[in-house]
């Protein structure tokens, strides 16, 4: 090849990673008529991907109207249960209702089935899917700015060139890290998710979780299920299986001296959860990191010739009771496709031209929600959230429901009595309560 031919782009855009962020970016860019290749290291999209599985679907519905009726989704969530566990008791808040069902607010998905559907939509729009290919590094040239200009990717002996590379490579974000665009996150900004998919007959699931037909339940659990380690557990219903897992903040896990496996097994056997799982068969066991830094982790998302989308850009929200990443990944994909499209059309794919992505992202629900929850990570680092409050709630309900012959007190008096007997001080309660109101 001549020097010049080697420098010519093979595609307008290379998207690395066929998760929700990558497949939606590729779809929307292909719809604009750009030539797009979507490179995925798994032998099929989704083969490497795992989540808890509750997808808040509004933004995806804008990209693929009516997707819940076409895509392989599991159940439509009509019931959100929040449970505080101690070693031997549980207090739950159960929110069920029609407003959650119509229009569909959230669905459960299993990623090995859902991600292939998304990647097919990208192919249908005209993107070229390359599965089973790991991108090893970014191709760079000295650029105008401090960091090099990205001109393509290297995979094995092959080099692919493009005007823009979209790093949709997920939480480890190796591509953006490799050129110094993003730092390695500190341990308190990461959590490890450990999950099993547990098979149970449809009818058993519906009876145990109080749902019928294609309705489903999402249980978020905090307290003793993680042995007090920052994080929580989730128990979500699929059509014929349950997704059960723990999310453990890495700094706290290391400090605790426990193993991730030990905590996961403790959770599976917990008397507050075991009745839901009884007689289930593990169909699959997996783990994945979760970005937990919230707004503080977003940082740089644009370089010369490069944009970073989805969890590779740290876009997740952990409110303590829900992990949201898929909808934010899709939201960032919508912003990136607009910004990249404008930059390519204007013939300027430098960081300055691609800054249009950042502007669209800042205006979108993604950054608005991240700003709303900006204080959540620091609030959730308060250790009491994971142990003492479960005991407080359990103590309160014990006093309310155990009719031991003593005269009933007014609920407020009962509550104060529970606080005084719990490991939480009134000062802590008020401080956490106020911080929680502002953070969540």
């Amino acid at each position, binding site marked *: 090849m001549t020097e010049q031919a080697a420098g010519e782009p093979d595609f307008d855009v290379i998207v690395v990673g066929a998760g929700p962020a990558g497949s939606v970016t590729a779809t929307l860019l292909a719809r604009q008529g750009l030539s797009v290749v979507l490179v995925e290291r798994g032998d099929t999209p989704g083969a490497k991907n*795992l989540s808890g599985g509750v997808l808040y679907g509004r933004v995806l519905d804008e990209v693929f109207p009516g997707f819940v009726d076409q895509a392989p989704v599991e159940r439509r969530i009509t019931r959100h249960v929040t449970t505080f566990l101690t070693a031997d008791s549980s207090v739950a808040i159960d929110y069920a209702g029609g407003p959650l069902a119509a229009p569909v607010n959230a669905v459960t998905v299993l990623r090995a089935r859902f991600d292939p559907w998304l990647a097919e939509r990208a192919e249908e729009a005209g993107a070229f899917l390359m599965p089973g290919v790991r991108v090893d590094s970014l191709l760079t040239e000295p650029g105008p700015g401090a960091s090099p200009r990205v001109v393509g990717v290297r995979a094995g002996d092959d080099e692919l060139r493009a005007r823009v590379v979209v790093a949709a490579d997920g939480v480890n974000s190796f591509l953006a890290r490799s050129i110094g665009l993003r730092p390695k996150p500190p341990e308190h900004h990461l959590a490890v998710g450990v999950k099993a998919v547990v098979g149970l007959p449809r009818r058993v699931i519906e009876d145990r979780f109080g749902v019928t037909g294609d309705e489903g339940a999402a249980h978020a659990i905090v307290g003793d299920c993680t042995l007090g380690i920052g994080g929580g557990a989730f128990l979500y219903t699929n059509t014929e299986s349950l997704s059960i897992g723990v999310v453990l903040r890495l700094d706290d896990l290391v400090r605790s001296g426990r193993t*991730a496996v030990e905590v996961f097994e403790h959770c599976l056997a917990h008397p507050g959860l075991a009745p839901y799982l009884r007689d289930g068969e593990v169909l699959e066991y997996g783990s994945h990191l979760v970005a937990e830094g919230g707004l503080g982790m977003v940082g740089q998302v644009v370089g010369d010739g490069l944009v970073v989308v989805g969890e590779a850009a740290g876009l997740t929200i952990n409110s303590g009771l829900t992990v949201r990443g898929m909808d934010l990944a899709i939201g960032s994909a919508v912003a990136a496709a607009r910004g990249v499209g404008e930059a390519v059309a204007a013939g300027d794919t430098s960081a300055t031209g691609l800054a249009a992505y950042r502007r669209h992202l800042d205006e979108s629900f993604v950054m608005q929600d991240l700003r709303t929850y900006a204080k959540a990570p620091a609030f959730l680092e308060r250790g009491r959230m994971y142990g003492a409050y479960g005991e407080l709630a359990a103590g309160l309900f014990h006093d309310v429901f155990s009719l031991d012959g003593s005269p009933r007190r007014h609920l407020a008096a009962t509550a104060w009595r529970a606080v005084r007997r719990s490991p939480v001080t009134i000062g802590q309660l008020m401080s956490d309560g106020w911080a929680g109101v502002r953070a969540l």
Partner: protein
Amino acid sequence: MGGGARAVNPQTTAERLGHNRFVLDEAESHIEIDQEVCRRTGTGKRLVAVCPAGVYSELEDGTILAEYAACLECGTCLAVASPGALRWHYPRGGFGVGFREG
């Protein structure tokens, strides 16, 4: 509330992993340990503790072994490793774990 026997089967990590699909890359391991740095920085114990697949184990003399075939590719080990103690990258395209559920 009733406690007692475990609710789901199977019950060990090795058995649970047995239900997963893996394509083993016989030619190369994607995990390399620098024993010296590991020992000096205490990284070994952290690797053993955090890995959900039980990939790492520690011998009596402190040497860390890595059974890379069972790796779930989460990257947690790399996140807690001190600089220089661990070289970890994704397996080559098409190799490694292949989730059927996810």
